[in-house]
């Protein structure tokens, strides 16, 4: 039974990805491109050389952060759709510290990351307090706060920290930039992301607090009856998930983008939600999913150059994967489906005899 459901949890996303690719190929064919050439160039673009692998991993870094943000919150039963806002608040505070504090080098980097983490956590806490003390719908609140954060970032790069005629902030000083690894695009931000993922994995599955947090997420009433501080865990999950996103925003600023500009971090919040759901809220699986989607995006640029298929086909594939995965996971839980599997098993058994 347990093994069956584990197998299903693994198979459903894999089949969903295959299905999404098949549909993606049909779309490409309709658009007049050769799907095989397209897929080939997609692969080469993402993993064809060490350089490309580095780019893919660099691209995956912010996605890992926002997907871990979503993943952690959902583990506690909190639907945090505000990863993007928390990511942006982190990067805004980080940008201030990097460009205005006058400190440079490692202390500045640490301060930047810390400030960004705190900002993300604080931004999420707003929604957390409203949920816990006003019993409010956290989804609507976090979405609204995303827009507020995006607009606030707009104020920052068009006004408060604007640098010159172009609406963008000044670049962070070179000394504050996160170091690149092996001369590739990938930076130490990726290492931080993986470390955060491992830490969350350990916390959720190897500590008593993580165990209790998961219990709260699965059945709040029972958790309360069993003496867990439900409200505290919910607030904690908001803060930690926001902090992860905030850290991601800072790392993205110091590692890849270096300045705030229109479109910074756009869409990462929802992407994170999608990846966490496909990864079924398992932190390590979520990381793999994030890398997979980053590869899809990086590869799609090469694909566009080779075949003319627009890069946004990768968004379609990603969207299809989530549509299929969520439906598929629901389907395998249906009693009818279980009965169907049971009948199939009976049949094969009888045939074997």
């Amino acid at each position, binding site marked *: *039974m*347990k093994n069956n459901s584990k197998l299903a949890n693994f198979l459903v996303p894999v089949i969903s990805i295959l299905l999404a690719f098949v549909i993606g190929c049909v779309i490409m064919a309709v658009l007049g491109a050769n799907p095989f050439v397209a897929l080939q160039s997609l692969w080469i673009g993402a993993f064809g050389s060490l350089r490309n692998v580095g780019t893919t991993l660099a691209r995956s870094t912010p996605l890992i952060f926002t997907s871990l943000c979503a993943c952690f919150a959902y583990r506690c039963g909190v639907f945090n759709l505000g990863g993007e806002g928390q990511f942006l608040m982190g990067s805004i505070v980080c940008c201030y510290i990097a460009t205005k504090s006058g400190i440079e080098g490692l202390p500045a980097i640490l301060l930047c990351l810390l400030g960004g983490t705190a900002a993300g956590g604080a931004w999420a806490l707003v929604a957390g307090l409203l949920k816990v003390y006003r019993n409010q719908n956290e989804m609507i609140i976090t979405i609204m706060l995303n827009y507020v954060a995006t607009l606030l970032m707009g104020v920052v790069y068009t006004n408060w920290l604007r640098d010159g005629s172009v609406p963008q902030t000044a670049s962070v000083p070179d000394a504050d930039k996160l170091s690149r690894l092996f001369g590739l695009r990938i930076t130490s931000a990726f290492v931080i992301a993986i470390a955060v993922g491992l830490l969350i994995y350990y916390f959720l599955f*190897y*500590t*008593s*607090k993580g*165990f*209790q947090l*998961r*219990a709260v997420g*699965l*059945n709040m*009433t*029972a*958790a*309360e*009856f*069993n*003496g*867990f*501080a439900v409200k505290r865990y919910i607030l904690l999950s908001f803060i930690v998930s926001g902090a992860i996103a905030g850290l991601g925003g800072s790392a993205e600023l110091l590692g890849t983008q270096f300045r705030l500009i229109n479109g910074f971090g756009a869409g990462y919040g929802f992407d994170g939600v999608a990846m966490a759901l496909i990864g079924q809220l398992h932190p390590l699986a979520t990381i793999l999913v994030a890398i997979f989607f980053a590869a899809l995006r990086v590869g799609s640029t090469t694909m566009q150059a080779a075949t003319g298929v627009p890069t946004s086909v990768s968004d379609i594939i990603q969207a299809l994967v989530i549509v299929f995965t969520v439906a598929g996971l629901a389907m395998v839980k249906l009693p009818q489906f279980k*009965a169907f599997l049971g009948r199939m098993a009976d049949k094969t058994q009888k045939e074997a005899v």
Partner: protein
Amino acid sequence: MDEFLRMEHVSKRFGDFYANRDINLSIRKGEVHTLLGENGAGKSTLMNVLIGLYQPTEGTIYLNGQAVRIDSPAQAVRLGIGMVHQHFMLVEAMTVFENIILGDRNTKGIFINKEARKKEILELAERYGLDVELDKSITEIAVGAQQRVEILKALYRGAELLILDEPSAALTDIEVEGLFKIMRKLTEEGKSIIFISHKMREVLRISDRITILRAGEVVTTLERSQTDGQELANLMIGRELAPSHYGKVEDPGSPVIQLRSVDYHKDSKHAGLNGVSLTVGRGEIVGIAGVDGNGQSQLAQVVTGVLTPDAGEVDMKGSKVAQFTPHGFILESVSHIPEDRNKMGLIGNMSVKDNIVLKSTDSPEFSSARGYHLKKKAIRDYALKMQEKYDIRCTSIEQETRNLSGGNQQKVILARELEGHPDLLVAVHPTRGLDIGATRFVHDTMIEARDKGCGVLLISADFDEILEVSDRIVVMFEGQIMGVFSGKNPPIEEISLAMAGK
């Protein structure tokens, strides 16, 4: 008498399991026909076949001599079969009137003609002596009134056969009298009634004929005049009834918990406490008897720290409780078997293992570094030990508890709640929905805990259960305590009156 409904050789199979096998049953016009049987005897399945929720695997149903197919609830309604479910099918957000006309197909037009419909309904209500207030919302009326709404609902749809599923379960004695009067009126008018119950007293009073089901099959059908309670009970269980076989304690130890004039939402008759004073001592089982929904849930939640009383004092082992939190009560060694095991007791999506250690992962036995590292092996070994000790039947301790049977779910909770030698055990409806074997196991376990010095507060709507294990019996009615009785040779008549508020 004419026959209204006949079932011939009806079977309902789920996979390899026969829930009903070769059922032959005939219901006459104008009779009260009782279906008697234990939990799991196949009563519900049979009724679900009659109201079109299930399709019979084999067999034929005849209505007025004609073979019919009942393939949906709508079809059952058209054929004149109406059911009053044990858990009422009433939409709480709507008024009595709206509930009655819901799903109506008899009248023409798009809009609701309130005046005309109300007139019809009131006429119908008068004819059968069903007293209802049409404009009240469902939440505003008492359980007995809700039941009348359900009956009226069925009659409004032209029901000729009414199925009443354990209709007296949630009623006071007076309300039961009212119900019986209505049932008589209905049969006088030629309606047929299928009465499902296992309360022998009521069955003997109201039935014209009685059909006994056991293990999915019809044992026999008897005329009321030709049988008695002893015969019915023996037929139902398939063996002789045994009297209570637990010894009763008369001198409990020092008080574990003491409530003094505790109020909680005291104006709410069905979900509040009004001046409740109560003591549970070490080594005794105090049984709270009463019809469901007279404040028992609130009492349980106050003595486990889930609810904070509005007034009054609670002493725990001699010292006053200052703050009511479940965590604080757990630290005081209070264990809780909550009324709804799936909602309040278990994390259904977690494994048997995880649910067994749910409360104790912070203890050094199961984690090191102040909870920052779980000892997975210790947890596993412990869970395996508990699985054996409490005879939890599961495919493995990794199985999710939501996939277990009710009895095994309850055993998981027992393993968690009783293993730490609690000072107080609060058990709410601990055997609801369990089969005889599991019920016996739960009772044995409670007695064992009592004999080790644990104070037990048992709350149950099952009067037989209260009589079986309680050393003292406390009766609750509308949030108040109506009386305290000895568990040894309890005065059953007096207790019944107290439960009805007298």
